């Protein structure tokens, strides 16, 4: 591990600004110059350096799940094929979803491809797609692992859920719960889920410890206010007086017949424990100020130190939940609140105000039912833009001063998606519709995985993906990667203890 300082990281990170990577961002000309993070501030603030607050274990890891709502096709990104490849393999490039040579970018020494698309989506009022995945690929290829998958459902909600649970591979625990269980014991809210639909699924393992259970968040902008009993309200009560009232409440409960009768109820016991443990923890750790990123003058809320920088980096946070979720994800990880965070676009159409300037198409990736190529390009760009910014931010924040590791050195981003899309296209047309297809692949990004590689392969004649040897990683024709195997590979790469889980051995994901 090379020796790095926070300042050098920030300078490098922002010199290669997050904004350089994604074409949609280039158009918006975000202003993130200067030194938005002030990690070298001399005020000794505990918020800035979570290690100094004693919240981090040097071995811990963080999982970020990006839910690609609607079905992100790997054939339209990092496993895309050219027409010439399909033709050479004996396939019909006119009928399969493949690209002209000009639309594909390949890097020397890499199996991964990137797609460049320029087209109008007529069914979105002529929205102009102009995307290029190659900048992202060039910047992050060393941390990118694409794994072929074969899902078991083409129902959105069910498949989304299974992309997190490996189809109940391990007692119904989600990946986030498993990671929170391993690394989140000392976190106030180890598993924060801001996702939509099946990506907000709560695992079904009844024996999962309380601390690993997820906290579902609907609006990340205002949610932190719920971590304090009164901050920002017109009614303020001094903490000393509030404690008096809490003591009185506890005294009243001792007298109450209702309490005496039902004090053994599991619900009541759990409630009292949560009340005792959490309220003071949240307030003592000042979570509201660690996580709040809106500008609210005069509210009594100071907010996160990085809030201004984040607002500039994610300028649509006010209207776009996905950007606001990314801001929250960054703050939750770097301020020691969470081990696992989940975010995703939702199914609602979103424009910047101009009806032709879509931020999110209706039903997100699933608008591919109407215009596959344009939608996939647009949505992949949306996902990669947020991922790029998060990675850049995490690289710029020091995790461990002793080793010089950044937060990115301890993190993984999993691009979860429910399934792929059908492989056919309308002959001779760039505008065609697609259906759901079990066959696909998923992108994982992390310093913990074998980067710049693909596990499995895509058959050039059919453009269907196939699997690989779970440990050597060698492609195996005729083998399909199950949800359970994928789930195990992710947790193995995250160094989660799988003892007694009954899961198969899958070491191919983990950096060798």
């Amino acid at each position: 591990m090379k020796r790095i300082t926070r300042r050098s990281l920030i300078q490098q990170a922002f010199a290669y600004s997050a904004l350089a990577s994604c074409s949609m961002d280039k158009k918006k000309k975000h202003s993130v110059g200067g030194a938005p993070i002030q990690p070298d501030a001399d005020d000794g603030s505990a918020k800035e350096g979570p290690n100094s607050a004693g919240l981090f274990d040097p071995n811990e890891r963080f999982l970020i799940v990006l839910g690609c709502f609607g079905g992100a096709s790997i054939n339209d990104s990092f496993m895309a094929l050219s027409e010439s490849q399909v033709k050479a393999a004996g396939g019909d490039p006119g009928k399969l979803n493949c690209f002209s040579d000009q639309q594909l970018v390949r890097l020397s020494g890499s199996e991964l491809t990137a797609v460049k698309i320029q087209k109008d989506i007529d069914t979105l009022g002529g929205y102009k797609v102009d995307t290029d995945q190659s900048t992202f690929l060039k910047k992050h290829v060393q941390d990118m692992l694409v794994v072929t998958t074969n899902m078991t459902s083409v129902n959105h909600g069910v498949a989304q859920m299974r992309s997190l649970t490996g189809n109940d591979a391990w007692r119904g625990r989600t990946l986030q719960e498993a990671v929170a269980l391993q690394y989140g014991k000392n976190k106030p809210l180890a598993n924060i889920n801001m996702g939509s639909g099946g990506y907000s699924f709560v695992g079904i393992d009844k024996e999962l410890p309380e601390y690993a259970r997820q906290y579902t968040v609907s609006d990340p902008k205002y949610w932190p206010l719920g971590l304090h009993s009164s901050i920002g309200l017109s009614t303020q009560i001094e903490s000393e007086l509030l404690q008096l009232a809490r003591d009185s409440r506890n005294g009243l409960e001792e007298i109450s017949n209702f309490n005496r009768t039902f004090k053994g109820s599991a619900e009541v016991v759990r409630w009292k424990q949560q009340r005792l443990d959490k309220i003071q923890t949240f307030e003592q750790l000042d979570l509201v100020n660690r996580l709040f990123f809106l500008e609210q003058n005069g509210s009594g809320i100071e907010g996160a130190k990085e809030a201004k920088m984040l607002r500039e980096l994610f300028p649509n946070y006010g209207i776009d939940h996905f950007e606001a979720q990314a801001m929250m994800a960054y703050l939750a990880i770097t301020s020691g609140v969470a081990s696992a965070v989940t975010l995703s676009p939702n199914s609602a159409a979103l424009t910047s105000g101009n009806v032709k300037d879509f931020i999110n198409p209706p039903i997100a990736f699933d608008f591919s039912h109407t215009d596959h190529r344009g939608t996939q390009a647009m949505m992949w760009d949306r996902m990669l833009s947020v991922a790029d910014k998060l990675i850049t931010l995490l690289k710029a924040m020091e995790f461990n001063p002793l080793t010089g590791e950044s937060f990115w050195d301890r993190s993984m981003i999993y691009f979860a998606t429910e399934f792929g899309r059908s492989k056919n296209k309308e002959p001779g047309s760039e505008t065609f519709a697609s259906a759901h297809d079990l066959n696909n692949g998923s992108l994982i990004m992390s310093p913990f995985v074998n980067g710049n590689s693909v596990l499995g392969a895509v058959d050039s004649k059919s453009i269907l993906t196939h699997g690989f040897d779970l440990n050597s990683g060698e492609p195996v024709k005729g083998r399909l990667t199950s949800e359970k195997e994928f789930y195990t590979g992710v947790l193995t790469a995250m160094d989660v203890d799988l003892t007694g889980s009954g899961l198969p051995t899958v070491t191919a994901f983990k950096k060798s």
Partner: protein
Amino acid sequence: MVRLKYVLSLIVIASLVGSCGGNILPQETPVANAPDGSDGQGAEPKKPEFNGALSEKGNVKFKRQAVLEADIAATLDLPKDSLCNEFGQFSCINDIHHLALGGVDAYDNNIYDAIAEPIATTPVILERIVISACGLRAEKDFANEGSAVVFKGIQSEKADPISIKESITRLYQRALLRNPKEAEINQLIGLHESLQARSLSEPGKQWAQLACYAVLTSVEYIFY
């Protein structure tokens, strides 16, 4: 004979309907004439001590979003949309913290299933809502004693003990639909005395907020 029974039945039904009055709250009992044989100051008459027969099933439910909102609004006689608003704009109960209170978010986030049980953030969110609503009730009651709903006769610096007991009784009747026990009254009077001993600018109003908070965050109020 049949006809007589029919007429009698109608009379019984009419009397039952008439007694309900369509009010979900118990009719406020004039404290001085409490019909339950109490001391007239809200405390229940002396009864044998409850021995705490513990429920074997312990089958209680947390009041979820809509029930909680309706109950707090009714208890404190406040419009639902005034109970708690983040930055004075967004409803704590319906817009911002609804998932933690057992609501769903079908339109924005495709979340159709409510949480099965309270999550870690639920207790603090409940406190937030109650502090806001109790603060509002105390503000109103202290701004206009004549139209006070819960806290009457305690607006002056030296509130008399009877008015305090009456306020506690009203609070219990409205919140828990019963009269307070003597020990419960004493508990809240103890809180009042603690505040009086401090140099607070408006100890009476502060007590009103805190007493309201103590009752409305108790398990008896938030479970059923």
